């Protein structure tokens, strides 16, 4: 991390403003960067991912598109192969179903198919996550799916500073990067209040390397390995259990591709207990991959079986009580930590 934090630095932003700040800085520095998607112009992004950018950069570089994800993501892929650095926004990741061919057959594969001769330096942004009664087609995370398909880096910031630093890295990366922002970490006034979505963000250039996890809270008894909004929930649990003398380490993966398996191993080597929290579906996803990161190398590190707290393999329910039961919220994380501790 090229962080130059001084104690005096207290300028706070919410996550959406931090993300926008990184985009604006890169657009000022590089005329090849532009942003396109549905409602990203005048509206400023339905989750404030582009607020204010149209005013500064105009409609040639902040482009409102028709409702045709295949067309505008394909446009971005083409522009990227010709040397531009587009950022295309998939309004909800759930909409990937209508445009997946452009994403995984073209954006992700052109680099391989050309023997590395054609680069696709684009960013695909997408809003992810549930917790606000938006039901089965607007609440998914699906990062495991993008991470499973080869050819895309996948980053999922949980804090305002990481949202800025990872966006800077994503724009500058010569590979396609999928940048997934959880609606619940953006710090939007009209969403569920989340105090952890407002924090100090370094001013000026700020880079967070892709593929490096961060210890969100140090602990000694159990490792909670997670990403995105679940980091905030895990920190809530860690604070609560600290009052009982239980020391929970929270590891924020920040990137899924590349996955910082070394950071997982280091943490589990210390605690001997692993709880993976994933707001994506339970089976065939991130939670299994993190457990495999330990099992493949040294299963003896685990003193007790690993616990997985994820979305059961069902669509996200609409009813708030059922939705909360399906999501990996504080109650389920706490229960898993207690079970791991015996």
């Amino acid at each position, binding site marked *: 991390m090229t962080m130059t934090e001084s104690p005096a630095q*207290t300028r*706070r932003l*919410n996550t959406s403003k931090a993300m926008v700040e990184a985009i604006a800085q890169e657009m000022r520095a590089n005329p090849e960067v532009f942003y396109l998607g549905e409602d990203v112009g005048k509206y400023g992004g339905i989750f404030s991912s582009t607020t204010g950018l149209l005013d500064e950069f105009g409609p040639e570089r902040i482009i409102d598109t028709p409702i045709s994800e295949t067309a505008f993501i394909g446009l971005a892929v083409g522009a990227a192969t010709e040397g531009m650095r587009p950022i295309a926004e998939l309004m909800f990741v759930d909409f990937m179903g209508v445009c997946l061919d452009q994403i995984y057959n073209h954006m992700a594969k052109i680099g391989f198919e050309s023997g590395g001769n054609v680069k696709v330096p684009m960013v695909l942004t997408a809003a992810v996550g549930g917790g606000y009664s938006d039901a089965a087609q607007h609440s998914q995370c699906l990062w495991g799916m993008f991470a499973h398909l080869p050819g895309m880096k996948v980053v999922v910031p949980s804090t305002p500073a990481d949202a800025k630093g990872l966006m800077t890295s994503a724009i500058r990366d010569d590979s396609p990067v999928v940048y997934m922002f959880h609606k619940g970490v953006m710090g*939007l006034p009209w969403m569920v209040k989340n105090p952890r979505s*407002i924090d100090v963000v370094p001013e000026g250039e700020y880079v967070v390397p892709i593929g490096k996890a961060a210890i969100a809270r140090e602990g000694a008894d159990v490792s909670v390995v997670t990403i995105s909004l679940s980091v905030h929930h895990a920190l809530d649990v860690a604070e609560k259990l600290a009052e009982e003398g239980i020391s929970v380490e929270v590891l924020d993966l920040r990137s899924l591709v590349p996955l910082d398996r070394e950071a997982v191993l280091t943490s589990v080597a210390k605690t001997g207990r692993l709880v993976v929290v994933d707001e994506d579906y339970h089976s065939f996803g991130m939670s299994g991959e993190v457990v495999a990161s330990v099992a493949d190398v040294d299963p003896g590190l685990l003193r007790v079986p690993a616990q997985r707290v994820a979305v059961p393999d069902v669509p996200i329910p609409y009813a708030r009580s059922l939705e909360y039961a399906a999501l990996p919220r504080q109650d389920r994380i706490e229960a898993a930590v207690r079970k791991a501790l015996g």
Partner: protein
Amino acid sequence: MTDVLFPAMSQENPSATGVLATWFAREGEQVAAGQVVAEVQMDKVDAEVVAPTSGTLHVQVEEGVEVTQGSVIATIS
């Protein structure tokens, strides 16, 4: 001492009320002129509040409180 006002977001209704949604800067902190210190909300529209001058922030209206536009929400000394 400089007042920080809830911005005039409604032209039709001078006594329109809105909510102090978020304080980015906290009580007693140093803020710089032009820095975004808060976000307010009225009729589903958000607006940023920037510090009109540099100095120490004194919060007058807590998050979640509804006030009339133009009200003093903080002072800077």
